Each structure stands twice: as structure tokens, then as C-alpha cells.
């Protein structure tokens, strides 16, 4: 594996301390020459995980492609908060068309660049979980199946936040949204079959699939760089907490992303041609309760009428991830 995980951390966190690293090992974000693809002044909420994710991904992709990058954006928070007329926060060529067609539009851009002999210019498609796992899913699968030269990035905040926090196909069980309130015999979202688009992407046997969180910048940037080293369809699924939709503190975005990974709720891994090639192991396992409690969307599990039974079911899902992907620290298995 080309990427060596760097195990430095600041007191109380597992964040890699950039200042302790040699300059060439520091993140793209820490460099003065970063492109600021999504520049300041946009209208995202305080603590928006998606805004962080988009900037991290695109700055890394800009660096990997020497600035030869086009971004295609599906409808959603990211599109709305970045381009209120007549302003734009985008410092790279950027196209928004519709909610459900981002992958197809991105494929069209890639085809046009190839037809123009400009395939040195690379294409990134990006959408939230609604635009990726639900309404844009057919287009995404088509893009994978054709192996079009696009990196598609899903910023997964587990719901339709732009429209007022409704349930999406990526909303986890028991989470409260505007369409899955904590009322009735099964409060919050139902325990469904789940819809792991990273695994579905792997089933297409595309060159590269990875998951990441905004809590581990080095890992995320490495995966973007790795993705840009391939031609063909690539998929990156980034876990981005949403303070508004999750009813969490704005200051907790990174902490929640880290707890999702450390509890096994969100498995972080890489796959090539349909096979998992690397996993980010849990460094210090925490119970899912540690991840759930700071979020108001799970408050009904811990209030006057606690539901340890539901928490146990969520724990079981995390345990399944841990077993399936081998997420426990080395030596603990």
C-alpha cells in the first residue's frame, strides 16, 4: 500500500497534527498553494460537513490533476449554498444541471473532453446522498457500467437536508427526520435492508471505490489522489455530518465523523476492481451510544423513555460492519 497511515495525534483527538509533519507530508489543505476550489463566502451552515468535504475533495483533486478539473454538481445543499445568484464560490469550471442526472451529465462532459482531445482535463461529479443513492442512482449505475472516466463523489449526510431534513435511502435506522419522526410504535426511520452504494459500486467492478470521512483529512486526500490515478469510473463516498439535520452542535462535525468510524457505524475502506484492498481500522473502539447521544435525531432513544433495544440493534449493525470489514485494531481480532 502506497499510503502510510500517520499515527500522530493531538491531545484528546486522533487528528493528525500537521505541524508535526514534514512539509511534504502535510495535507493539501495545509498548503499555501491549495486551490480553494470552493472558496469562502458561501452560505453553508456553521459546521457543515458537506462544505468541508467538497473543499477537501476538490482541492485534492485539483492538486492531483494540476488544476485541470471540471466539476459537475447535482442539485442539493452544495449547489444551493455555493451559487446564490449572482455569486459563485467555485473557482473551477462547474456545471449544475438537475437533481437526478449528475452522473450522466458528468459522463457527457467526459465524452466531450475526449472528443475534443482534451482528456488531460478530468471530471468530478458530486452530489449529496439523495442525488446519489436515490434519485441519481440509475444514472450513477449507468456511468459505472460504461466505465466512464468520472470520479463521482457522494457527500453523505444521511438525508434530504436541503429540502428540510427528510429521509433518504441513506438515512440510518431510528434516525429522526421530517418524514420519519419519533412517533408511533417504531420511532424514527425503519430498520430496512440498507443501501450501501460503495458495495453496489464494487459490484460494478469499477477500478476504484473508497469511503472516507471528513474527520481524517490525510486519508480522504489520499483517496482522492489515488482515485485520480485511475482512468474510468471511480466512486468516493464521504461521510459528512450535518449539524442542522442531525440536531448536533456545529462544533461536533468532525467529532461525530470520527465517532462514526470508531464505533463501526461507518466502515472506511478502499476497493479496486471489486475487491476490498484496505480498511481503516478502528483505533479505539467506542460503543455506538457514544456516537448516537450527541445527536438530537437519536434523542428519543435516550430520553425519559429510553430504548436500549433499538440502541442494541444499531450496535449489532456496527458489529456486523466491524466483522465484515475487519475493522478492529490489529491484534484485537
Amino acid at each position, binding site marked *: 500500500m502506497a499510503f502510510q497511515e500517520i499515527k500522530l495525534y493531538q491531545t484528546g483527538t486522533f487528528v493528525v497534527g500537521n505541524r508535526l509533519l514534514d512539509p511534504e507530508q502535510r495535507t493539501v489543505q495545509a498548503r499555501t498553494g491549495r486551490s480553494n476550489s470552493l472558496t469562502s463566502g458561501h452560505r453553508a451552515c456553521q459546521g457543515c460537513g458537506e462544505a468541508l468535504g467538497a473543499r477537501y475533495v476538490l482541492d485534492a483533486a485539483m492538486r492531483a490533476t494540476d488544476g485541470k478539473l471540471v466539476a459537475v454538481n447535482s442539485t442539493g445543499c452544495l449547489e444551493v449554498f455555493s451559487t446564490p445568484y449572482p455569486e459563485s464560490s467555485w473557482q473551477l469550471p462547474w456545471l449544475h*444541471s438537475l437533481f437526478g442526472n449528475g452522473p450522466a451529465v458528468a459522463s457527457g462532459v467526459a*465524452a466531450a473532453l475526449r472528443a475534443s482531445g482534451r482528456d488531460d482535463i478530468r471530471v468530478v461529479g458530486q452530489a449529496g446522498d439523495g442525488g446519489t443513492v436515490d434519485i441519481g442512482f440509475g444514472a450513477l449505475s449507468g456511468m459505472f457500467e460504461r466505465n466512464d472516466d468520472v470520479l463521482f463523489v457522494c457527500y453523505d449526510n444521511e438525508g434530504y437536508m436541503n429540502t428540510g431534513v427528510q429521509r433518504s435511502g441513506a438515512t440510518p435506522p431510528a434516525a429522526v427526520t421530517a418524514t420519519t419522526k419519533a412517533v408511533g410504535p417504531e420511532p424514527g426511520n425503519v430498520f430496512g435492508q440498507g443501501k450501501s452504494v460503495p458495495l453496489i459500486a464494487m459490484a460494478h467492478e469499477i477500478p476504484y471505490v473508497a469511503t472516507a470521512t471528513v474527520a481524517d483529512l490525510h486519508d480522504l486526500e489520499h483517496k482522492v489522489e489515488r482515485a485520480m490515478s485511475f482512468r474510468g469510473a471511480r466512486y468516493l463516498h464521504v461521510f459528512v455530518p450535518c449539524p442542522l439535520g442531525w440536531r448536533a452542535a456545529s462544533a461536533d462535525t468532525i467529532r461525530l465523523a470520527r465517532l462514526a468510524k470508531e464505533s463501526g457505524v461507518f466502515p472506511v475502506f478502499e476497493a479496486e476492481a471489486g475487491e476490498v484492498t484496505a480498511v481503516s481500522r478502528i483505533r479505539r473502539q467506542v460503543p455506538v451510544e457514544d456516537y448516537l447521544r450527541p445527536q438530537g435525531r437519536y434523542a428519543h432513544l435516550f430520553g425519559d423513555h429510553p430504548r436500549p433495544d433499538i440502541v442494541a440493534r444499531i450496535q449489532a449493525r456496527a458489529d456486523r460492519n466491524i466483522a465484515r470489514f475487519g475493522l478492529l485494531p490489529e491484534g484485537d481480532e
Partner: protein
Amino acid sequence: MRSQIEGSQAVARAVTLCRPQVIAAYPISPQTHIVESLSDRVRTGELAGCEYMLVESEFGAMSACIGASAAGVRTYTATSSQGLLFMAEALFNASGIGLPIVMTVANRAIGAPINIWNDHSDSMAMRDSGWIQLFAESNQEAVDLHVQAFRLAESLSVPVMVCMDGFILTHAFEEVDLPDQAQVDAFLAPFVPQQQLDPDEPVTIGAMVGPEAFAEVKYLMHAKQMTALDEIPEIAADFRRAFGRDSGGLLKTYRLDDAETVVVALGSVLGTIEDVVDSMRDAGVPIGVLGITCFRPWPAAEVRAALAHARRVVVVEKAFAVGAGGIVGQNTRDATRDLPLVVLDVVAGLGGRPVTRASLRGLLDDVVEDRLDPTRLHFLDLDLALVERELERSRHGRRPGPHAEHMLRDLGTVASGAFD
């Protein structure tokens, strides 16, 4: 070069000569022969430098065209019927952004009931999508309109639909004069967009616009499309100079001088109507035809001028607005509202029902004798007995359920199931 050729093949050849750089295709009848033929032409190298994308849906096809066009290349697709409706959201997006995509619509009915045959319900349903809509009367005109459409689209940065009757034109073999490459290259300059997705000059395309400017953006869309009313005749005149034949334009008139009765129609049915008008002229009836080549933008002033001396107008159209009436008829009434004439709406040829000379002659005889009630919507060759039976049944008690169930059983087209 004159060839005996299928309409779809002729259109595919014409599109090839226009050198599109990205084609996104999804199969739907009766458009399929066009994209099949284009696939061959890309694979064999006849159409060089073109990326041919086999997408997962019509929505994907139009979306890929949007991306490709915004990235600065000439872009083409084709569809029909349900496919056009599946694209609907992307059609409005392409026109809203102002992307000069050209698309063939092989006109076909919209279900339910599902029906693969020709009428105009598909493109008429998309008449407000911001696309220019040109209707071909013949395969020769379909070929010529495609060459003109790319020039028109790129001149105004507006998407253009070339509508041709499914099966009636797409699958018909007839003589077509196909232009050669040098002629088309001289007529159609390479596509050079004013802005495109380019890392050297990054632009934001498709930004959100709120109440402060949305109406202005839409006004400009309208204004731009209305300039097509000047542009289309100029392109048609240029086309005549370059290719030596009349094709395109806004309207086509046939024996309109001194005509008291005028038949308004679009597409391939014009030929049949002209035959009937010839025979009526032979019998001394002052009747003529106004063919609508450009339906969007609606050439209201030109329609009004063409109908200024008519006493009665009958619009024969292959679509209608359920619950309202004729579509082209409504537009025609609007264009002629200060003229002392009657506009009759007749729906014909729905779902592929042949529009025969005999039926048209019967209709037009009734029209010139003022036997048609102008306050009603008329249907040519409607099986009144069948409709009446169903209406009678419903008078004896409505029940929720599929519309056509009884009627199909009456016709014996449902293979199983007893009817009481």
C-alpha cells in the same frame, strides 16, 4: 446525391454530415433506426471524432448531451414518445441553460394505453419546454431541417427539436437528395461556444437564481427564441442558395391565393391534405393549405398574414389537450383573434390511425358547407358506436377502473376474460 433510402438512414446520414462530437443514444421505437445507423457510422469511422454514448435512459441521454454541450462540443440525440417525456426535466434544463443541442423526435403517441404508432402527443406535450420545434413534411425536409437545425441552434444557443412522423417518415423508403460533406461544411461552421467548461477560464454554469432575476432570465429566453422567427427564414434562404431547394422556413403555403377555406396542419399529413385540396380545387372549391414547419416559436404574425383572407380555417392536428381541445387550433385562434374567421379543431391520426384521403375529403366537404360546429372539438374517423356504448354503460353507474377495458373487449382485442 439522390438515393432511395429509409427516412431514418437519411437522417442519420444528414446528422453524420453535421459532424456531431457527442451522440447519446437510448433505444425507443420508432427512433431506433436513426441511432442504430449512427452507431454504425461512428464504428466504421464514417463519422470521425465522435463519442457515441450508450446511456441508461432518455433522461441520461439528454443529461449527457447537456454535459457535453456545456463542455463545448456539438451534441445530438434522438427519441420518441415516452422517451421524450422521460427527458422532460432535462429538456427544460437544456433550454434554460441555453445549450444548442439538436434532437430528432420521431413522433409517436403517448400512453396509456401504450401505443407505438405515430401522432404528435409527444412533442406537443413538450411545446413549452423552451426548445425550438420544427416539423418535417417529408424525408427530404427531415434531412434538410437537421442541417439547418444545427446552424439555428448554434446561432441562437437554443436547443432544437426536429420532429418527423414516426414510421410514416422514419420507416418510409423514398427518394432523398442527400447533400455531400463539402456542401454541409460550407453551410455549417464548426461549433465555437461563447463559454464552456474550461479550467483555463473557469465559469459557473447552472447557478441558482432567485426572485430577483428569475423572471428576467426567462424573459431573455423568450426574447432569444422569438429572434428565431427572423433567423429561420434567413437560414432557409441561405439553404436554398447553397442546396438549390426550398426546405424549412416558418410556414409553407399551398394554393392559398383566394382560398376561403384553409387547412392548417403539421408534418407528413400535409401531403395527403394537399392531394385532397387538389381534387377539391378541381371541383372549383376555393381551398388551400397552411403547413406549420416552425411550431415553436409560434409564428403568430406570419400565421395571421397567411390566414388574413380566409373565411374558415380547419386545424387538423395529431394531438390535443385533454379537457381543453386543439393545441395548434388554440394557437391559430390566438394568432387570428382580430380576424373575421372561424377556426375549427379536428383531431386526426391519433395513435397511428391512418388519415386517409377519403376521410379528409368527407371532413373538408363538411367544413366548406359549414356543417361542423365550431364550438366543439372534432375527431376524424371516431368510432362513435364504440364510444357511445361506453358512455351508455357509464350512465348506468360509474365504477373506478381502467378507461379502455370495456372498449377493448368490445373490439375483441383482449384475448381472455368474459365480458358480461
